[in-house]
């Protein structure tokens, strides 16, 4: 039924936010010591945190969908220090003050993306005001990775038989039809109501441009239509196609699994 609804819809209004910064880094989960590599683009959990930061509250992730186009100028390594701390006891030297933490400074290398630019599409046009007056400091990645919103608009996406895709995260099942990019396991959602329990999902990171004509065609996929942003730059008569993702919904429950709808 959900698919049918998506197939019928010819357009949809979404919030389009352009955010730019100087640096960012999206570390791999479970690699904590010595080196912290970065994903080439933000994991969904990072996007969820970013949205909540703008709104100033933990929003119900159910039904929220997003798509993005993310680029950066260059990847560099920087040397950082982590203050590795552990619980402690006793008194601070020379005082009667209780010592609660102690630790050491550890150098490590962090991969950093320089000149990041995010074009974020959210299926919540009503949040435009919140992004115009974000509740908390606008960051993406680490807390020191300050960003600026350079454009906030509501755009009407349309369906098109042709699209190009680039610099984006594709759903894993659809991504493999692209034959471009790298499969990655990314944190999809951190459940703050349950001790920040992480949920992971596989995606395909696509950095280079490909067109809808290049998608490997499974049976019955003729007549595929794609959500495109008509305000995006036009390339060979096509606009930027969008893969929409959910933070929590199961793939079969999504209204538009990848911005792509097969005819029912």
């Amino acid at each position: 039924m959900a698919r049918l609804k998506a197939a019928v819809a010819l357009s949809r209004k979404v919030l389009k936010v352009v955010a730019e910064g100087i640096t960012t880094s999206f570390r791999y989960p479970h690699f904590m010591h010595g080196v912290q590599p970065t994903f080439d683009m933000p994991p969904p959990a990072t996007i969820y945190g970013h949205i909540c930061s703008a709104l100033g509250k933990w929003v119900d992730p159910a039904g929220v969908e997003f798509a993005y186009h993310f680029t950066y100028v260059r990847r560099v390594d920087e040397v950082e220090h982590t203050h590795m701390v552990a619980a402690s006891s006793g008194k601070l030297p020379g005082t009667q003050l209780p010592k609660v933490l102690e630790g050491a400074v550890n150098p490590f290398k962090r991969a950093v993306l320089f000149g990041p630019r995010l074009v974020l599409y959210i299926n919540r046009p009503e949040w435009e005001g919140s992004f115009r007056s974000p509740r908390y400091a606008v960051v993406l990645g680490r807390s020191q990775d300050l960003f600026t919103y350079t454009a906030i608009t509501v755009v009407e996406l349309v369906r098109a038989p042709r699209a190009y895709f680039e610099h984006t995260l594709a759903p894993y099942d659809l991504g493999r039809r692209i034959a471009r990019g790298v499969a990655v396991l990314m944190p999809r959602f951190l459940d703050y109501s349950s001790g920040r329990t992480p949920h992971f999902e596989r995606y395909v990171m696509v950095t280079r441009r490909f067109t809808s004509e290049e998608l490997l065609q499974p049976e019955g996929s003729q007549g595929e239509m794609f959500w495109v942003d008509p305000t995006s730059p036009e390339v060979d008569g096509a606009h930027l196609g969008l893969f929409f993702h959910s933070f929590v919904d199961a793939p079969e429950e999504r209204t538009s699994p990848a911005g792509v709808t097969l005819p029912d």
Partner: protein
Amino acid sequence: MLKYTGHPLFDVGAATIGAIVGKRDLSTITVEDLEQAADFLTEQYTVDPLKTFLVVAFPNSGFTNPAYAKRLDKRLEYAQQVLRAYGRDAPRLGMKCVFTGEPAVAVVFRQHVPLITGEDIINFHPGGNPGLPVSGEALLCIQALPLGCAKCSGRLLAVHSDNPDLTYEFAEKFLRMNMSAISMARAAGSTKMPEAKARAGTLLIDTLLQLEQARVEQSRGSDYEGGQPCSLTAYHLTNSGQSNPLDPRNPPLQIYHLPLEMMSFLRTVVGAEYRHEWNDIASRAWEIPKPRKRKKGEAEPDEDGGPRRNFLYEDLLKLPDNARYFLRTYFLRTAVRWARGDESDPRCTYSLREEADLVSWKLTDLFLRKVMNVDRHRVEQIRALGDRLADYVSTQNDKGFFRNFFTLNNYGYFRAELLKADANEVRRGQPPLITFDQFIAIFEEGDEIARPDWKLARDLVLIRMVEQLHHRGWLAKNREVVPEITVEAAAEGAGSEGEEQA
């Protein structure tokens, strides 16, 4: 009992368990299989050479703790804790495993899982609770990880793919390599586990090509290329406290990506249609062993090591970003300038004059389609122009045009040279060398406005032209007109174009 999660360290460990018990399909693994794997790991990990080697993966663990060096009972006790925490009767902690989502039975630290934080460190953990909660199955899989990795440059090379078969095959192959190395070490009375001979990047590609070759042979001519698309990521890591995170020669972790397009390319080149050309190029890319000086009284140097590095394989890992350099070096046989003086680097001796037989348009065409995603129409136009120019050069014996086409780096001069030859050909009553549509499709964005990648297009035309002139025998007769050009490796941080005329 087990299934792949997408996490590389868990998945490689799970594949290693599968390889130990001989089950490719993890869903068929039973508790008895886990017991068999735990027995096997207990037997291996508590004695040398693995006891020593495991410092790379699990420093300060019960397997490697120096205090337990002479206490087999302690090592066995520790093995019992970490290898047999699975099963229904294991006490639950009320938390979920971070890998599987199953009930956790233990909170683990750096001595149990590589590259996480040590005990008591509260950074990076929700609520300031140190460690990661894991299930017994996950703990067993992570402990099995080192045996499914190659020991390479003192680190572990773990290879993970979204294709479970490939993850399994790498783990299974590395397990066999490790067991052979363990046997050799024990036979020699050594406590040290031998290293893989090749560097990590070379070993990765070499092993991948071997596995893909085996698949092609198993498919017996069926449409193998139509198999499941997948990407591959390799993790070259050490968890040892000896590694310095700031030492570029020995970082704790290096990640190598082979995207879907690269995997598709490599799967295809091992097929019958391309194998011959590919192997010819690959065999000329092996490191040239440096002659080792023999000290007085020393026996003959050990020659069984062979070359450790294949430059083609290592450069594959820098693609697709480095595609133009790659094309010029390996397909157009252009020497690498910065490699001059390094006698072990075969690329400094590459020469189109001497190796025109290695130039293959077929392979280049595949590379353009699979890796660079060049428009099919443009590729066809380039091929057609290469054919036409080869015909012109050989019939008119226009050596000057060939040399200028090869060496001119100013687009205006290059364009004028092409148009001059075109006009000459038309004056002779022949069809034009290049049409307006071809010019636009290959070299220009607009009238006299060069495409940013016009030099790449020129190289591609050259590849086709050289191949055709070689087949016609013209190059063999006119070797002196082939200029010796060098190219800079963009990925090595040198100049952007980096060309010079010799």
